[in-house]
C-alpha cells in the first residue's frame, strides 16, 4: 500500500459510487458531495490520501461527518466550506493542530465530507473510517467499541451558528445532545467529532475503507462501460457473497423515533427462483430473511444493488418492480467482539436473534 497518493477526480467519482454501495441502504446519496469535489478540483484543489499506518502515535486527526436528514440536505445542499469550518473550530477550542482528516462513516455522503474539508484546509485524508459502512447512530462506531472518549464535538450551521458539546459521559449522550442541536439548526449540521490520536486511529479505526470504496466503485463503473455484470465485478474485488437476485414485490415504510423503519419483500428470479427474501431496515438494511429465517444480519453488510447498473438502491428510494441483487460483504472485525455486537448486532436494532455471520465457515 502506497503511504501517500493524490486522489484523481476519477477516484472520487468511483468513491461516490462505492460509498453509496457501502452505505447499505442509508447514509444519503454522495451526489452533492461529488458535485462539490468536481468544482474544487476544477478550481485547482487536490486531495491526498494517506495510509493510517503512516501516522505517528502523537498525530491528531479530525473525524468529520454531516449529521441530519438526507431530505433536508437535498434542499439546503452541502456547502464544502461548512465541514472545513467544523474542523477549524475544533482546532480553536482545543488548541490542537490536526495533521489529517478522516471520515466517520464511509457509507453514503459522509465518505466525501473529509475530502471537502481537506481541500479547503490543505490536509491529507486518512484512508479509514469508524463504521466501514453507514449506521444511524453516533454510538455505532469502532471508537465506541474501544470506549474512546466521546467528546468534544463541534457542530456548524453556515448562518454563523457554531456549537460545542463540551462534555458527555457516554456516546449515547453525545448522540442525544448533538441530535438536538442538529434539529434546531433545521435537521442538518456539519460536525467534527472528538479529536483522535494517531495511536487511537491505528488501534481502533477501520483501515483502508476509502480505498475499498474506490475499488468497488471503479469495478462497477468499468463493468458498466464494458457491459459486464457489475455484481460479478464487485465480487472480484471484494470477498463478498452473492445472496439473491429478484424483484421488489412490496415495500412497507414507517418513521418511528426519527428513523425510517420498514421491510421490503423480494421475489426470486434466475438462481433464486422460488425463494422469498425479506429485508428489514432502520435507515440501513439490518436483517435479510430467507423464507422466514434470518440469513444475514448486521454487522455483516447487506447491499441491495440495481441488477443492471450495479449501483446501490437506498431504503428511501427502493420501490416495487425494481430488479435487485443482494450481496453480503464481510463486517469489520472490530464489531465481532461482545461489545461490538452489543452496539451493532441484531439486538441493537431490536431483533431477538443471534448473530451468525454468513461468512462463518
Amino acid at each position, binding site marked *: 500500500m502506497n503511504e501517500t497518493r493524490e486522489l484523481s477526480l476519477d477516484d472520487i467519482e468511483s468513491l461516490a459510487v462505492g460509498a453509496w454501495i457501502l452505505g447499505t441502504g442509508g447514509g444519503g446519496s454522495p451526489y452533492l458531495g461529488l458535485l462539490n469535489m468536481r468544482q474544487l478540483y476544477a478550481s485547482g484543489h487536490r486531495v491526498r490520501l494517506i495510509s493510517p499506518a503512516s501516522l505517528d502515535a502523537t498525530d491528531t486527526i479530525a473525524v468529520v461527518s454531516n449529521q441530519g436528514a438526507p431530505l433536508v440536505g437535498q434542499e439546503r*445542499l452541502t*456547502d464544502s466550506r461548512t465541514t472545513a469550518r467544523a474542523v477549524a473550530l475544533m482546532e480553536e477550542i482545543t488548541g490542537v493542530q490536526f495533521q489529517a482528516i478522516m471520515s466517520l462513516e464511509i457509507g453514503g455522503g459522509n465518505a466525501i465530507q473529509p475530502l471537502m474539508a481537506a481541500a479547503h484546509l490543505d490536509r491529507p485524508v486518512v484512508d479509514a473510517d469508524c463504521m466501514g459502512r453507514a449506521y444511524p447512530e453516533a454510538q455505532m462506531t469502532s471508537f465506541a467499541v474501544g470506549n474512546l472518549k466521546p467528546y468534544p464535538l463541534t457542530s456548524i450551521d453556515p448562518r454563523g451558528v457554531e456549537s460545542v458539546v463540551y462534555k458527555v459521559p457516554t456516546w449515547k449522550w453525545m448522540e442525544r445532545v448533538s441530535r438536538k442541536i442538529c434539529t434546531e439548526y433545521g435537521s442538518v449540521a456539519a460536525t467534527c467529532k472528538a479529536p483522535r490520536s494517531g495511536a487511537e486511529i491505528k488501534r481502533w479505526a477501520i483501515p483502508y475503507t476509502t480505498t475499498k470504496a474506490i475499488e468497488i466503485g471503479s469495478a462497477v463503473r468499468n463493468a458498466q462501460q464494458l457491459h459486464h455484470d457489475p455484481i460479478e465485478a464487485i465480487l472480484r474485488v471484494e470477498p463478498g457473497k452473492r445472496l439473491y437476485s429478484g424483484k421488489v414485490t412490496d415495500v412497507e415504510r414507517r418513521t418511528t423515533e426519527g428513523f425510517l423503519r420498514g421491510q421490503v419483500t423480494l421475489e426470486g428470479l434466475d438462481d433464486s427462483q422460488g425463494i422469498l427474501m425479506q429485508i428489514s431496515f432502520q435507515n440501513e438494511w439490518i436483517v435479510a430473511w430467507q423464507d422466514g429465517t434470518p440469513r444475514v444480519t448486521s454487522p455483516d453488510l447487506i447491499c441491495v444493488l440495481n441488477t443492471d447498473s450495479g449501483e446501490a438502491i437506498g431504503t428511501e428510494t427502493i420501490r416495487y*418492480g425494481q*430488479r435487485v441483487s443482494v450481496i453480503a460483504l464481510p463486517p469489520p472485525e472490530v464489531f465481532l467482539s461482545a461489545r461490538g455486537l452489543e452496539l451493532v448486532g441484531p439486538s441493537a436494532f431490536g431483533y431477538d436473534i443471534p448473530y451468525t455471520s454468513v461468512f462463518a465457515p
Partner: protein
Amino acid sequence: MRRIGIDVGGTNTDAVLIDNGEVLRAVKAPTSEDVTGGIIAALWALRAVPAGQGDVDSVMIGTTHFVNAIVQRRSLSPVGALRIGDPVSGSLMPFCDWPGDLAQIARGGVWSVGGGHEYDGRPILPLDEDAVRQAAIEMRDQGLTAIAIASIFSPIDADHEQRAAIIVTDEIPDAVITLSSDLGRIGLLERENVALLNAALSGLAVQTINAFEAALHQGGINAPLYITQNDGTVVEAATAIRFPVYSFASGATNSMRGAAYLSSIDNAIVVDVGGTTTDVGQLVSGFPRESNTVVEIGGVRTLFRMPELLSFGLGGGSHICLDPLRVGPLSVGYQLIHDGLIFGGNQLTATDIAVARGLLDLGNAELLRSINADTQSAVLAECERLLEEAIDRVKTRAGDTPLIAVGGGAFLVPDQLRGVSDLHRVIHGDCANAVGAAIAQVSGEVDQIFRDLSRTEAIEQATRLATLRALEAGAAEDTLTTIETEDMPLSYLPGNSLRVRVRRVGDVAGS
C-alpha cells in the same frame, strides 16, 4: 361539445375531431419545419368533409417542440438565475450540474442572495431584499429578461420567491420570471433546474403558442386554445406560455390518455409502439402514473410532474439482425417506405416480419420469400420477450393486468403475453395521442411536508389545497376527483413529518 385534438410530433402532426365523445374524423399530416404548416394542413384535412365542418368549442394541442429545443440546444434564451439560500447553499450554484454545452447557451448569469426556509416553514434567514434589487439591476444591465428564481424549501413556503419576483419586475418591467415553486418538487437543484429550463424556453414558448393561435386562425377555427401537459391535463394557452416544461412528455401522455378513452379502461398498462421506440406506462384511474424519481432532460436532472415511462428501442422500423438474433434499437424510422424490404429496400425490419407472417398487409410481400416461418417465429418471440420484460418492469403490483396496445406499430404486440390478463386493441389507436389531447381535463397538485398532523388530517389538508389549485386552473368544481394520493414518512425529522402528494382533476369549466 365539439373538440379538436392535435398532436404535433417530430414526424407527424395527428388531428382528430371529437363530437360528444365520439371520434368523427382522424387525419395525419407531416410536421412542418415551422410547426404551423403541419397544423394548418391537418386542420384542412379534418374539415375537408361535411362532418368536419362547423364550430368547435375548443382546440387542444400537444407538442414535443419544447423538449426537442432542449435536446437539440436551439432557440433558447439566456437565463438570469437568482438563488435564494445564501449562505446555506453557497457552494453549489445554479447550472452547477448542467452539461457544459447547454450551460454555455442558457447561463446568462448567476446571483445568490440571503433567504430561504426550513422544512418546517421557519425562515432560514429573512429575504435580503437589497441584494435582490442589486441582482435585478445587474441582470437588467446585462440585458437579461428570462429570469428563474429558486429558494430553499419553496414548495413549503414560496413567500421569498414571490417577493423577489416583485422586486425583479420593479427593476425589469419586461422580465419573464419563472418561480421554482410553481413547477418542481422537493430537491433544490432538480427543482431549480426545471425553473432554469422553463426560463430558457420562455422566448420560444411565446413564439410557438402565438404560431399555434395563428395557425388556428388561418385554419378557420375560432375557439379557445388549450395546451396539453405532462400529466394528461390541459391548461389555457396563456398559462402554457408561462410553463413550457409542463409539455415535455405530453406526446406519450396523450397516447396513454387516448388509449384509456378509446378502450374505456382506466386501470391498465399501455404500450405505444411507434416507428423507432415503444413507450410503456401505467394508467391509474385513467391517468399516467407519475414519476417519483429524477428524470434527465437533455442531460439535466429534473424532478417535477412527469409520467413514469419506460422507453426502449422496438418499433415498426426496428432493424432485425438474424445472427445473433437482435431486434432494434436501430430503426429506419420514417425511411421505412424506402429502406424496408417490402418497399424494395435492403434493411430487414420488424414491419417486414409482420407482413411475412400475415399480421399486416403492406408493400410487396413477394419480396419476403426468403424469410421462412422459423425466422418469423424467432423474431416475433424476441419482440414478445422485450414487451413482457418492459410490461413487468412498469407494473407496481404482482398479478396479471389488462393491456392496451396503441401506435402505428401495435401489430407487433401478440395477443397472448405473460403477465397480461387481456389485450385491447382500439379503433383510431394510431391517433391515440390526438384523441388524448382532445379529451384532456384540468388538474391541481400538492406536494408538501406536513408536521404534527395525523395521516388523515395531512391528506385532508393537501386535498383542500389541490382543489384550490385545480379551480385556479379552470376546473368545474362539481367534476373534481382525486386521482392520486401518496404519503411518505420522513426519517430524521422531528414531529411525525409526513410528505403528502395529492392530485385532483376535473373537466374544463364551461365547455
